[in-house]
Structures are given as structure tokens and as C-alpha cells.
């Protein structure tokens, strides 16, 4: 499923980031890599704050839709 559907507090592991643009590379540079654990800290109308590699990062819904977790 995509990160958009994860519940607040839930932890998942990243499978894949869809798309092929600078945002994908930026996400990977910031630690969203295959196998990394993500926890959803909070969600406000589709935008999320997630924790990855010990850092909290805010992303908007369009990015959350592209991050596949399992």
C-alpha cells in the first residue's frame, strides 16, 4: 500500500518510490530508501509528518502517494 493509507502511529518498511524525478531523488537523499522503516507521526488533510531514520520529515499527499510501504 502507499504511505497515504498508513495509520498514524503505524510503522512500515519502504518497498519502492514511484516516479522518476528530482523529488524521488530528494526523498532518497533524505533517507527514504528501500528497507528503511517509516512511522507516521501525524496526518493533516493528506499531508503527513513521518519519522525516517530517526528524523521527522513532513511530506505532502502527492509524495505520500508515491511511497510504497509493506
Amino acid at each position: 500500500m502507499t504511505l497515504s493509507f498508513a495509520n498514524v502511529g503505524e510503522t512500515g518498511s519502504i518497498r519502492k518510490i514511484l516516479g522518476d524525478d528530482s523529488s524521488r531523488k530528494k526523498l532518497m537523499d533524505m533517507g527514504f530508501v528501500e528497507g528503511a522503516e517509516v512511522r507516521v507521526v501525524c496526518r493533516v488533510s493528506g499531508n503527513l509528518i513521518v519519522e525516517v531514520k530517526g528524523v521527522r520529515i513532513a511530506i505532502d499527499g502527492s509524495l505520500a502517494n508515491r511511497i510504497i510501504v509493506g
Partner: protein
Amino acid sequence: MSEIALVGNPNSGKTTLFNYLTGSSQKVGNWPGVTVDKKAGRLKGHPNVSVVDLPGIYSLSPYSPEEVIARDYIMGGNLDAVINIVDATNLERNLYLTTQLRDMGVPVVVALNMIDVSRSKGEEIDVKELSKWLGCPVVPISALKREGLDDLVGETIRAIGTEQPVPKVFQPKVEEAISAVSAVLAGSEPDGLLRWSSVKLIEGDEAEREIHADDLAEIDPIVSSLEAAMDEDGETIIIDGRYNHIAAMVAVSVKKPDVEVVTLSDKIDAVVTNRWLALPIFFAVMFVVYYLSITTIGGWGTDWVNEAVFEEWAIPGAEQWLTDMGVNDMLVSLIVDGLITGVGAVLGFLPQMLVMFLLLAILEDSGYMARVAFVMDRIFRRFGLSGKSFIPILITTGCGVPGIMASRTIEDDRDRRITAMTCSFMPCAAKLPVIALIAGAIFNESPWIAPSLYFIGIFAILFSGVVLKKIQGFVGTPAPFIMEMPAYHMPNARTVAISSLDRLFHFVKKAGTIIILACALVWFLSAYNWSMAAVDVADSMLADIGHAVSVIFAPLGWDNWMATVATVTGLIAKENVVSTFGILFGLEEVSEAGDEIWANVAGMFSSGVAGYSFLLFNMLCAPCFAAIGAMRRELGTWKDTALAVGWQCGLAYAAAFVFYHFGTLATGGGLTIGFPFAVAVLALLIWLFARPMPNPEAGADEGVVPS
């Protein structure tokens, strides 16, 4: 002369360290993207070593202009050593950049910063082990608590000129490919950069591929066979490889306590980003900032300075003293009625500014700024901007110049330009005295006046964002929002004090230069007539000029010549609005008490609606010369700068015009002659906002990466 650069992730403490190492007072704050330009200084105790502070970067691939500045400087090749500042509480992410830096062949010393926080969390970091994995010295420090800094300087000086072993971070298959590519490139790159370029080529980096276009025939097969063997694209192979290596390194060198607690930051975030509470909390925060700085604490200080310092002491004292010295009457008048009265009218507001700067510095060092950007993203997105635009807006509340510069952290080219063009709609600290004066004189010191202008500023930005994008044919959705949310912490007393005093000093300096010059000019024009005879203000050259120009503002409800002159001098710097009033009313010899100035100011406007219309125009019109200069730097051309300034003045005029005529009707002043025109202007504004995009095909490209 050696050159050392401070390189690290955003918000890792580079500037805190830089300030200590060089004795500077550059801006520090708890959000990513505080530093947007490179700054050099001399290393204390080592006059032949220069230290350069850079904007933070997550990797050596830049996404926004401030990151380009950092990358270009690092790649520029003039560096003798890099101090890589790493947030010790977050090694897994921070060491990613370290592994990239280690590929570049320049000596690196890793500074494990925030070691105080890491210790208090009960973490143990094996520094020797880390140093072994990274192949370079690692020094634990706390830039804030000033621990370990001598060690760091010593290690760095020692590292200059040394050759450090480059760690092989990737798995054997990948390392083999890197060696194969290096063999192809050998000779065409300096030895130090050979590995770096080879890795970049495996990642498929466009710029690097262009440089080595001739070798691609040999390199591409190596890369494709690697990609086939690993079933991934080159970019992913490299990024994953680095992160896997780091995970292994951190696993053996960092011991974290097992207790998984919900941190304080999580608890605060649950409240301040809550769907229903977030906006009311932000409104309340800004209301309190203005309430404390204008209405209460700051206001009391200002009253005291005005009455005790200027009116009872400085002005009569200086006059007495100068007259006793036998100074020429005209010079006494220039100094007392012009310079001291005018500059004094501005300096009187310093207590209000100080309180405001203190509160902003506390907000900036707390970690709240990034949350506001996150919360605002969902609103801004509807208007075609992203939450990133909110950081410049917040900074402009202090001063427009750094606010406009802060737009550099916005990745998307269009969003960035729109933000730089519009963020000076916000009321900055120099506009504060104007607000305080009008609120005091006309609105019975209502605490709502300042916040109302603050939110009108935000609205004007959103409105202009949509309109300007349509005028310039920018289409497409705003770039995706990604921003690190730093952990909250107690604002540091020293950081807050330095930051607010620094800004206050900036104002005093401005009062002593540009404001004092403007005061001298205003005094001269207001004391003489065209044949250079000393006359009453009402017969002066300034009065003539004011009367002539005031027809422009008559439709806005204030055709008073003094308000006109104040507005025009305010285009140079907004403080001039207040100093001009000070001089004009001072010359009429009625400035004994603040209340009387208020009565005079109130007397210029026929109604409260007219007074607010004056404020509205002064808040929204072209900010000041300094901000226009900053806009020119960010936009790159005078043409766009002129568009921005023209739009600001036009919108200011339209807003004040519509407000005055609708306001007059709503407050029982009846229908004005201008009312039908106000309806037409309002309709035009709505049309500009709501009309369909002129040519929907053009420019629908993705987020732009400048290089």
C-alpha cells in the same frame, strides 16, 4: 592562507560553530534553511586560516539555489579541508553526506555536534570505531555548549594537506564497476575526483555525463551490466549502497537505550499541527507577538523613551546646549527640529522593536517555524504556492531583506519568484512604528490593528500568487512539499539575545545613516520656500510638493499633504513615515506630548476609514530601497523587479481605494462619488484572480532543478 568549509545537513549547527570559530554573529535558528548564502570569516587564533559557513545540504545534488551555492563552493576545488558537521542524535541520515564528501578526495574532519543532546538521551557513540569506518578524524563537540572545539580546530589544522584513505562503502560488485569506470576516466579527471566522477556516472548524473560525453560509449555498458546484475537503476544502487553501509557502521558504533518513548516533540506536534487547532494556535501566537510588542511591554517602553528621553531631555537639552555654544540658529534648527526630532521619532520605537525581535527570535529558535510551514502548506497549495513560501513570510515579519533572500530555499522556480516578489506585503519591523502610530492616534490603541494587517499581508500574497502566475503564464501545480521538522528545544538565551540585539543594532545604524539623511532633506524642504526664505511649514517647498502630489491619494480618502509626503519618503525606508510626521509636527511646535502628536495625526484624516486606508496603502506599497535591491538580486532582472514593485504599488492603491469607499458606506458615511469606481476596481481584482489561465499548454514542466 588555507580555506576550511563548514559542510553539513541543514540545521546541524554549522552557523553556531562558525560564530564561535570566527567571533561572528550570523543568524542561527531551529529550522532547516536558516543560512542561504556563503559567509567567510577568519579562524580565531589562526589569522591565516579562513572559515566558510555554507547553507545546509542533504547531499551534493542540489535542489534549490541555496544548495547550489553550497555545492558549487565545495566543488570549486579551493578547499584545504572540510569540517563536516554531523548531528550526533541522527547519525544514520547525517552520515550520508559524509560518505559523499569522502569520495571527493579533500581532507574531511567529522564534527559530531550536539553531543550534549545525544548524551542526555543516554546514547553512547564509539568515536574510534566511526573514525575507522570513515577513514578520517571524528571529534565529538557541542557548538552550543562550546565543548570539544579546541580539539576540533587542532584536528582540522592537522588534516590540511594530508591524504586520507577513501573507504570503500559499496558491495564488491559495485566497487568493481566503479574501478572499471575510473579506469576509463583515468587522466581526464584530477586523481582526487576520479572516484567521485565515476560514482556520479553510475548514478546517471546528467551534468557528469555531459562532461564525459566522449567516454560514454565505454562507460554505459559497464553501468548497464551492473544495473542488470542488481536489478535496480544506478541511482538507487548508489544511494542504497551508502545507506546500507551507514546502517552497518551505526549498528556497531552507536548504542541507544532501548526505551522507545513518545518524545516531547511528538506530543507538541499532536497539538500544534492538529487539523482544527493548528490555525487558531498560529493566529494566537501572532496576536500575542503584536500585543506584547506594540500594545503592552513594548508600547510602555516606547512611551517612556518618547517622553522621558526625547521630549524632556534630548530635545530641550540639545537646543539649550547648542544655543549656549553660540551655534548659528539655522544649524540649531536643522539639528534639533530636523535630525533629533526626526530620528528621535524613529528611535522612540526601539523598545517596541526590541520586544518584537525577542519574540521572533524565541519562535525561530524553538522549532515552531517549520511546523507553521507544514500547516500552511495545505492552504497555500490551493493558491498554487507551497508551505515553503511561509518561511520567508515569517522572516519578513522581522525584516524584508532576509525574508526575500529566504525564498532561495524554495525548490520550484515559479514558486520562488512569486514568493520573492510578494513576501514584502508582510508588515516588517520598520512598518511597526507606522502601525503603532496610527493605531494609537486613530484607533484608541486597538490591539487588532497590527494582526489585521498581518493577515491582510498573507491574503495579499496568496491573491498575488494566483494573479502573477496568470500574468506571467506560469502554470502547473506547486512543487511537492518535503521539509525536515527539527526537534523542539528550549530557545537558547545567548542565541536569542544575539539575534535580537543584532537586528536592533541594524535599525539604529539605519537611523544614523539613511533616515538621518532623509530627515535633513525633509527639514530643509519644510523650513524654506522656493526663494530660500525661512517660512512656516505651511508655506514651504515641501507643502507645495505635498499639495501637488496629494491629488493622487485623494481617491483613497486622504488628500492631506503631510500624509502624502510621509508616504513618499516611506518608499525609501518605512521608518521615514514616522520621522517625517515627527519633523512636520515638531516644526509646528506642538510635539510636547505624545498625545498631541496623536491628535495631529488623527487630524489629518477625516475618518477612521481614511486612517486605515492610509495604513493599508503604506503596508502594501513598495517596501523600501533595501528590499527592492534584495528582490532584484533574487529575481535576476530589473524587468521582473519593476513588475513586482509596480504590482505592489498598484495592489496597494486598489486595496486602499476599495476599502475606503466600501468602508465609508459601511460605517454610515453614505455613498461616495468614487463608489462606482471602487465597485469596478473590485470587479477587476476578482477577474484577475478568477480568470482562466491564459495559455494552459506553456510551461507545464516539472519542478526545476537549477545548476
